[in-house]
């Protein structure tokens, strides 16, 4: 499937609605995008995701799209560009989900549904990592990590969006990931959780 085979959306109106301060207007914009769900997901399930996962990915993509529209990271250029952009976000999320599955499978873990990695750790452990992300690694590192590891953007795409060189982003991406992992490693409680997992695999 290509983006051009889906029914055309009134893209400028959707963007205007999503940027509106009024909740009712925003909801109209979301409803117009949700109406495209089946068209956008059709033939996308190349990684054999179940329907629930696929639907979650659609909503995550919508969640990302909304942020990008509101903070003007998405620039409307021509008819069809919003649809193509949304489609790209969905593809990235599907690819990212597949990577997370592969990472879980490296240690013999397999999630039947939901996030393949989050189910491996306790809520408390995840909250501690969130705190590191929010407070310790710095805003720039957080941005690069979120774009690469949450949105599934490639280094080149991040570089284009942020107006930086691919090399800089590539270095920042791995450098920031190392920084995050170092902070996790310095947390004795988190370190113990990892060691316990290694000794007692699920």
């Amino acid at each position, binding site marked *: 499937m290509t983006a051009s085979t889906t029914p055309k959306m009134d893209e400028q109106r959707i963007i205007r609605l999503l940027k509106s301060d009024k909740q009712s207007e925003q909801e109209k914009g979301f409803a117009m995008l949700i109406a495209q769900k089946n068209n956008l997901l059709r033939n996308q399930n190349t990684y054999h995701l179940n329907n629930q996962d696929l639907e979650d990915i659609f909503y995550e993509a*919508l*969640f990302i799209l909304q942020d990008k529209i509101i903070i003007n990271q998405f620039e409307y250029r021509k008819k069809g560009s919003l649809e193509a952009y949304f489609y790209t976000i969905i593809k990235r999320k599907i690819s990212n989900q597949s990577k997370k599955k592969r990472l879980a499978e490296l*240690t013999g873990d397999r999630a039947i549904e939901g996030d393949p990695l989050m189910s491996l750790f306790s809520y408390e452990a995840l909250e501690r990592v969130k705190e590191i*992300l929010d407070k310790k690694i710095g805003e720039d590192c957080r941005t690069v990590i979120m774009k690469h590891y949450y949105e599934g953007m490639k280094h080149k795409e991040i570089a284009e969006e942020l107006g930086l060189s691919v090399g800089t982003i590539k270095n920042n991406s791995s450098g920031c990931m190392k920084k995050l992992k170092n902070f996790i490693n310095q947390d004795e409680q988190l370190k113990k959780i990892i060691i316990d997992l290694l000794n007692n695999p699920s």
Partner: protein
Amino acid sequence: MTKYTEIIDKYLDGEMSPQEALTFEQQIKTNPDLAYEVRLHQLAIAGVQHSEESRFQEFKSRMKAIESDEKDETPVVRLNPKRSGAVRWAMRIAAVLVPLLFLYFLFPFSGNKNNPLAATTIQLVELHTTSSRGDAPSPQTTLLDEAIQSFQQKDYQAAIASFDQIIKTNPDQRATALYLKADALYRLGKKTEARNTLKKVLNEDDDALKTKVREVLDKL
């Protein structure tokens, strides 16, 4: 401890050859440092996902509600459903024909286009039907009903006999009976008699009917 970050990313991004990937997978089982770092990587990425999770779950609930509202909306029933062109034309023709047929059967005498008396006859019959509706039957109303019924059944002779009786016995209905008798005579081809009978209406008290008669007399 974070020396394997690039290698893990390379594996996950599919940038390793199948042989390299296989070797990497084997090393996890034999290299405790690598096994530890894979777990560390898992926790880091799970934490990245978790950092947006509560905001995302809230957003998802909102989207589900919007989606549900869209589905629950009562489908709009078209007042003018789409039909084929032939059906639409047939319905238009029926819309015109049905009322005409109804009027024809209700007032069969109105079919004579050249009859200058017909239009007022319809009005008189309608007026009588409307005014007598709900009234207790009286000999007079019954007689006029019978006369009109004979008229509608095109039994003009019988209708004229009934009208004559009304003219003799009921002054209140005389003007109407005279007019309708004139129309019955006209329909029987007795135009002179029709004209003479019509002139008698001018002696009655019904001014509205007299005005109509004057108009009709000019056309007879």
